[in-house]
């Protein structure tokens, strides 16, 4: 079976491999190869976080690349000793905050064109239903305030602890728990029928 890129299987895959700290130290010295290894380890988590924060696949892919390029430039500031995920998600959160207005403007521009409805082929209906469901969840998550999405993405999807998320977002840990509670409350309300 092909090795999966799942976050859950990473610790086994990277056993006996250099630590994230060692890889960042080499990236800081100008090497490119270790950046690829860091990408292999954390792409899925950063991408999931970016998807939920931006609500758009293309924006998310841009954010992922920008995150790793920014991490490359800031490699020397990475504090060794643990996984790079809090650092990378922190970088992604900073970039998302900076690009919030751009995303909003771009989305408004794109949706202004609209899309003509098309009749699905029979074998496409199930896939379309699933896609519509995913799009609905995306839209609901995208309607949350950015700071709530950041916390949700870090803890729920990125697997960060509250302390790690608080450090990455530069807020008190109590704020993380409060925003997470509020975000879940808003989502439960908006997705009520679908969650039953």
């Amino acid at each position: 079976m092909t090795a999966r890129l799942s976050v859950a299987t990473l610790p086994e895959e990277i056993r006996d491999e250099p630590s994230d700290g060692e890889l960042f130290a080499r990236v800081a010295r100008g090497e490119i190869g270790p950046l690829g290894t860091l990408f292999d380890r954390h792409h899925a988590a950063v991408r999931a976080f970016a998807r939920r924060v931006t609500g758009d696949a293309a924006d998310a892919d841009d954010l992922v690349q920008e995150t790793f390029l920014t991490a490359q430039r800031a490699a020397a500031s990475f504090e060794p000793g643990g996984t790079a995920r809090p650092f990378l998600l922190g970088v992604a959160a900073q970039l998302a905050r900076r690009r919030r207005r751009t995303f909003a403007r771009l989305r408004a521009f794109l949706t202004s064109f609209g899309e003509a409805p098309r009749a699905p082929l029979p074998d496409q209906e199930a896939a379309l239903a699933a896609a519509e469901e995913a799009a609905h969840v995306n839209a609901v998550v995208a309607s949350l305030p950015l700071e709530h999405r950041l916390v949700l993405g870090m803890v729920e999807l990125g697997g960060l602890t509250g302390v790690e998320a608080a450090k990455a977002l530069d807020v008190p840990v109590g704020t993380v728990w409060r925003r997470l509670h509020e975000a879940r409350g808003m989502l439960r309300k908006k997705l009520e029928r679908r969650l039953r």
Partner: protein
Amino acid sequence: MTCPELVLLEASFDRRLGASDEATLARHLATCAACSARHRELAALSTALRVPDPTPLEHKRARLALLRAAAVVPSADRRRRWVPAVALVFAAPLAVWAGTSAWRSAAPRAPIVAPPSSSQPSVSGSPSAVPAVPSPTPSVEASDGPARIEPPRAASLRPTDASPRPRAPAAAVASREGDGASRAFREAIDAVSQGDFADGAKKMDAFRAAHPTDARVEEAAFLQAVALQRAGRLDEAKAAARRYLASYPAGAHRAQAARIAD
């Protein structure tokens, strides 16, 4: 839904509970319908929020795009920003002159602008070194898409004597030599741009050896150090950077070379 244990339930989803609290909560869930319903709801929410992992192809594409972007050497990045301005400054007079030249002379055309070879425009050499003087080249072909502006090549751009134009055989020989150097340099740049740093460093070295008087030798010397660094051959990169600094103490890349040599 006013069960006081609801607080514990959400803390469990936040991974804040210890083992004993988790066990207490599990026992409570078996007896409390309200908490059990909320537990199912929160679990369904977690599932709904999950994002499918990237497919191997998506991962590979994103990885390649990242490494390509990460491998852009600083000098190349700076040149790319020059392109629109440089293209406007030099393309317009060249095009005007080319038109009048073509009208005056019926000589065979020998384009000095290479056809587009990639989707990204690029300029090799120092743009400011391109002489804005009439040359024996009978015409310039211009087209949409990326343009390649070559650094000054005395034989192809600068009149060397007062002989009547065109001097086809001599110009052709000089052009072939220039093409060879340009091709070698382009291949070296391409190797570095594509992330094949070991090959890029080798080709930069070969270019310097084969064309020691070429205007791009300084650039090649610097890029060789960068390519070696990116390939992880740090000792060789330092040696190459020191060679660059020794040869070009006032070179355009001295600051970056000094950082590599450290």
